[in-house]
């Protein structure tokens, strides 16, 4: 076999190029590895609120404030409980003094006495961040300081938030506010620091009536997941297209 000088050089170069290819470039990834790289997870945290079980005691609000260092005596709060009182004249009276932190033990709503005989129905609605599938707040954050984790939780990077308030404006649920001392956007995290350790959220743990539950939608055996799959549940403000992930049992059309 003859080999000219030109051929030798050509082949040497080819050989060198092939040899320099890192082995990792040819590595075959397992489906699980691919899943991990593109950000899929076998957990999707969702929340279930049973309105029929809530008595408006406000323990959840108290527990949340203490657990998450939200100043206790200011109006802003990560979770709150609203009271709806519908009277015979068709009016809906709604209030949430201090987010319902201290419970509801007064007949007064916005300075007006509601005569118990005129009430046709009344109920409490606990609210919190909906950790939407398509969160408007994440979309509008100019610096990417608010983001969605693989498990679906929407969080805020307190070290990167510039405090412009665009996310607060974009949230249709009023779930966000400025933290009074940290001066950055603040919101419910589903107690991410607790649930990722296998604990329940502070509000779920504090609720004496089991009105609040947290679960994994991707786990078919999870009781919350089973309820959402098999029972009739509702969500808030569907029309904004953010696909909220807090589900409600016994939701009334009057709930705002």
């Amino acid at each position: 076999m003859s080999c000219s000088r030109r051929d030798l050089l050509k082949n040497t170069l080819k050989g060198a190029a092939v040899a320099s290819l890192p082995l990792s470039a040819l590595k075959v990834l397992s489906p699980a590895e691919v899943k991990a790289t593109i950000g899929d997870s076998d957990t999707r945290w969702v929340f279930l609120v049973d309105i029929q079980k809530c008595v408006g005691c406000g323990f959840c609000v108290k527990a949340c404030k203490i657990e998450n260092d939200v100043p206790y005596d200011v109006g802003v709060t990560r979770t709150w409980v609203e009271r709806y009182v519908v009277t015979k004249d068709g009016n809906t009276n709604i209030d949430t003094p201090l987010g319902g932190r201290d419970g509801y033990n007064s007949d007064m709503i916005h300075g007006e006495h509601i005569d118990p005989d005129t009430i046709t129905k009344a109920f409490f609605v606990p609210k919190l961040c909906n950790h939407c599938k398509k969160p408007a707040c994440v979309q509008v954050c100019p610096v990417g300081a608010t983001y969605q984790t693989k498990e679906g939780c929407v969080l805020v990077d307190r070290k990167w938030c510039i405090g412009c308030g665009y996310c607060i404006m974009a949230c249709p649920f009023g779930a966000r506010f400025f933290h009074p001392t940290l001066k950055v956007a603040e919101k419910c995290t589903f107690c991410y620091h607790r649930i990722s350790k296998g604990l329940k959220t502070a509000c779920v743990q504090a609720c004496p009536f089991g009105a609040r539950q947290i679960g994994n939608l991707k786990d078919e055996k999870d009781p919350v997941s089973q309820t959402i799959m098999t029972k009739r549940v509702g969500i808030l403000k569907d029309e904004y297209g953010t696909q909220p992930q807090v589900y409600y049992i016994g939701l009334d059309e009057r709930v705002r």
Partner: protein
Amino acid sequence: MTDAATGELIVHGAEWTTKQLFVYPNEFIYWSIQIVMYPYMTGLVAGAFVLSSLYHVFGQKDLKDMARFSLVFSLCLLPVAMMPLQFHLQQPLRGVNVMFTPHFTSAIAAFGFVFSAYAVIVISEVWFEYRQYFIEQSIALKGKKSTNETLLRWFYYTLALGSRDLSEKAIAVDKKAVTILAAIGIPVACFLHGYAGFIFGSVKANALWMSPLMPVIFIMSAVVSGIALCMLTYIIIMQWKKFQAVLAKGMGDESVVVIEGVQMDVLSKATRYLLGFLIAAITLELLDLIFRGYTAMKSWDILREVMFKADFFKIFILQYGLGNLIPFLLLVVPKQQTIKKLTIALVLLLFGVFMMRWNVVIGGQAFSLSFAGYMHYTLPIIPHSMETYKEGLFGALTVVATPYLLFWIVSKFVPSIRYS
């Protein structure tokens, strides 16, 4: 933040927000006076630039005198468009993060880039416009002995960026560059401002803001306010020059008559453009209002309450009446225009555009996301903390005063008003 007197924690927004009926606990008027100032100031920048470009690009010769002035003035307005945002941020030192990690699904993220691009265009255009002047000055000051003059010479020398060419060919290149930059600048200026409208128009949670017309409305009223401010400032400066000429040479001197004639001529021509944009702005705003009323979506009930009851005076009397209708009549009806009438019309127009911004920004937060309650805004006047200064009357006044301070400084080196 803590109240200095009581040591109590204060939630951002709580100091100027009064809630009525059912409002979510976390809702406050978070976007206050500085966010009113922000589109107002960017509007003035964009408007001033468009006015100067009308001459450079479309050869509107009648605007020649205004063109140079409005170009320099838009340069002075540039840093001011950023100021309200800095004042408003809860973490002002992190403002620059927008440039480090821009999150492009956000309408605000591109601001840093669009604004920087626009700044480069304006600064370059000013440079090409004045390159010849810088070189001439540094040559004229050569050989002068005093420290001031030497410093000034070096200053002009630096401003010329090492360019020394005064040949006809080089000056022709300057002119061409100015035209090209002005042409690129128009869409960028419109984009800069239209996009300020997009920031509001795209907030789907807000029933008042969400409208595809918002960006166009913002551009039109921006041009109105920009032209009006340039004309007004021009009037003030020319009146001052006239006053100086009267002091120096007496009432009947030729130079006084010349100034007066030039001034009126320039102004009446600029007025035509002003009227065109004003009509476009009002038409679009009314279209938006009528459309909302006609389609009467879920939010219309609360919007109607806010517009026709709580904010009726601010919207229909102050904005449309005093701010649009009266100046429109003042500009259109009388055949014989006088400086006095024109000045009143311009001041009212500027006020009208400001009220439009106010009614959009504050008005959009005057009702709760629950559609079952209201929020009222009280502008902090006497500041008692950094926050009430920044987001109060004095913060806004600081923003308004800055372009004039800058113009005063810039004018010392870059003359933009010549009536000869």
